[in-house]
């Protein structure tokens, strides 16, 4: 984690310099807007990494991870959500009923995601409890 935000923010700063150059020299609203949007996206990403862990902005190698985390092996919910996007947008162009079918699939996918997240937390608690008993 340590140092993780540095390359993102550094790159964002180089982009910012080039975007300013573009704005000064080229001065077109669409081009400058697109370049500024890209800078904003990269900075937002870097800031999110930084806010998640403050050490992301500090230099040096990361330390060993000590926190416990659940590792999902499979997710039907993620697949269904991905498919629902395809289904709904396909419905926009070809068969309207697929649009509604896609939306229904999305809702089901989100429901399934909640179930998976709950199971994940339960498994984590169970495994950690067993380790503590040992």
């Amino acid at each position: 984690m340590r140092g993780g935000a540095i390359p993102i923010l550094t790159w964002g700063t180089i982009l910012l310099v080039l975007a300013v150059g573009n704005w000064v020299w080229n001065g077109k609203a669409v081009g400058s807007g697109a370049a500024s949007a890209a800078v904003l996206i990269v900075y937002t990403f870097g800031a999110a990494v930084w806010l998640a862990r403050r050490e992301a902005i500090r230099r040096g190698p990361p330390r060993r991870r000590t926190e416990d985390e659940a590792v999902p092996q499979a997710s039907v919910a993620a697949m269904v959500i991905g498919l629902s996007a395809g289904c709904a947008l396909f419905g926009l162009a070809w068969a309207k009923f697929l649009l509604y079918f896609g939306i229904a699939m999305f809702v089901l996918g989100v429901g399934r995601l909640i179930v998976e997240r709950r199971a994940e937390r339960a498994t984590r608690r169970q495994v950690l409890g067993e380790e503590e008993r040992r």
Partner: protein
Amino acid sequence: MSVATGRTARVPVMGGWLGTLTSTDHKRMGLTLGVCSLFFFLLGGVFALLMRTQLAQSNMHFVSDNSYNELFTMHGSTMIYLFVTPMAIAMALYLVPLQIGATRVSAPRLCLAGLWTWICGGLVMQQGWFASGGAGRAGWSSYAPQSNGINTPGVGMDLWVIGVILAAAGMLVMGGCVVATIARRRAAGMSVLRMPVFTWTALVSMLMVVAAFPMLVLVMILLYIDRHGGHIFAGFAGAIDYQDLFWFFGHPVVYVMFFPYLGAAAEAIAVSAHKRWFGYVAFVASMMMFAALSMAVWSHHMYVTGGVTNQYFAFTSTLLLVPAGIEYFDMIGTLIGGSIVLRTSMLFGLTFFIQFLIGGFSGIFVASPVLDYHAYGTYIVVAHFHYTLFAGSIFGFFAGVYHWFPKVTGALLREGLGKLQLALMAVGTNLTFFPMFFLGNDGMPRRVSRYPTHPGWGTLNMLETIGAGIIALGVLVFVINVWTSLRRRVPAGNDPWLGHTLEWATTSPPPPLNFEAPLPPIRSYAPLLDLREEAIDRARERAEVTAGG
């Protein structure tokens, strides 16, 4: 579900097709994405062969004009949105967590949703072939107003737009997950300046995906609205705005399709030269600069429109030569003094650099407004971008395949077949694309289904068609090689090439959480090479002590 408590753990794997399709293991997601991309590569290759058959002679009627428009649109779209870019992401998804010592990818569910969104995008785009009026036919860039509802009506074009939205959104999500993995999940000791060369190339590529792909999604949504009566890209200003927005994605994606393959070629060359990559810090700095500059050159595609400031974009485009030069310098520096083994991966890596050089040199022409006025809309441009995108990316891709196939499958590919494939592809590529420079200079326009009888054009076009056939033969040899190598396996072991990076410290193929044994100490971007060099130093010291005693 399993729990990792800051250390590696054994995890049961869900088997079967459902296990593969729903797996959140980065390796299985990477493989699924890679295999689907390869399928689209073969499909895009078939489109190319049909086009080359049509162009083999002047005034051919092998396909209709409309079908030809569909073919070049779907060839370009399939190769860019469904093969080269996603394959780069697939390699990053598979390899980056292994190279940085992570047990998994960040936000694996989001990544899986992105994968399925991309798959849907590919399928939706290809559905256009079955629509009345045919598939999308306004080119892979689909300029407005040509792509609007009046000039290109039909469901096929709508499906193309929606396919691009889905594919781009999927790749955006997966690219974001790779960046987050690098930012958050590096192993203890793996500082950003100890990350392997391939990981750096993947990082800058995925940063470009994160920064530029939202613009593609946006412009395609606007195009969809425009096609259905929105009049967003109306008139000259609208057409220029479309191009500005499109190329803001369209030029960076060229480098997304280049950097990871550059990283793959660099790893293959360094390992086969038994030497660490030369000039690492300069390389990292040049990658950052290269990636940023490539986000600032987009309007060099628009010189002839008269709607952009040519000087600024000519300046930034020419600046790209500096980081590109550093990479070539580093490659040569790595080879000098190395103990070189000419493996297939090494040969593909070297060919990658040579082929891309031709693309780079021709890029100087199209980056210069004066010369671009001459080259624009001709086969010079087709030759240039095929030398960068096909000759560049594909040779780097195969360097990576021959380098990492043993890690992914546990089996070695046949070297003899690999070298035969390389020879066929190198001959085929240059036979196909080099004559295009002459045709373009002579004024042959791109995107025409037929050309008039003209001295020399017929012969050069015939040569190109033969070249395309030879490339196809090369791809066939690769398919046979993979089939043979998986059917009659020659076990690779964990580290058949004496690799430098962490992926070679685990089993082949790697276990679910990547590493079962503790990681070696990470003191540089080549930790396994460090270990070997330390062992050699210790042995030398012992020998000296023994000799002295």
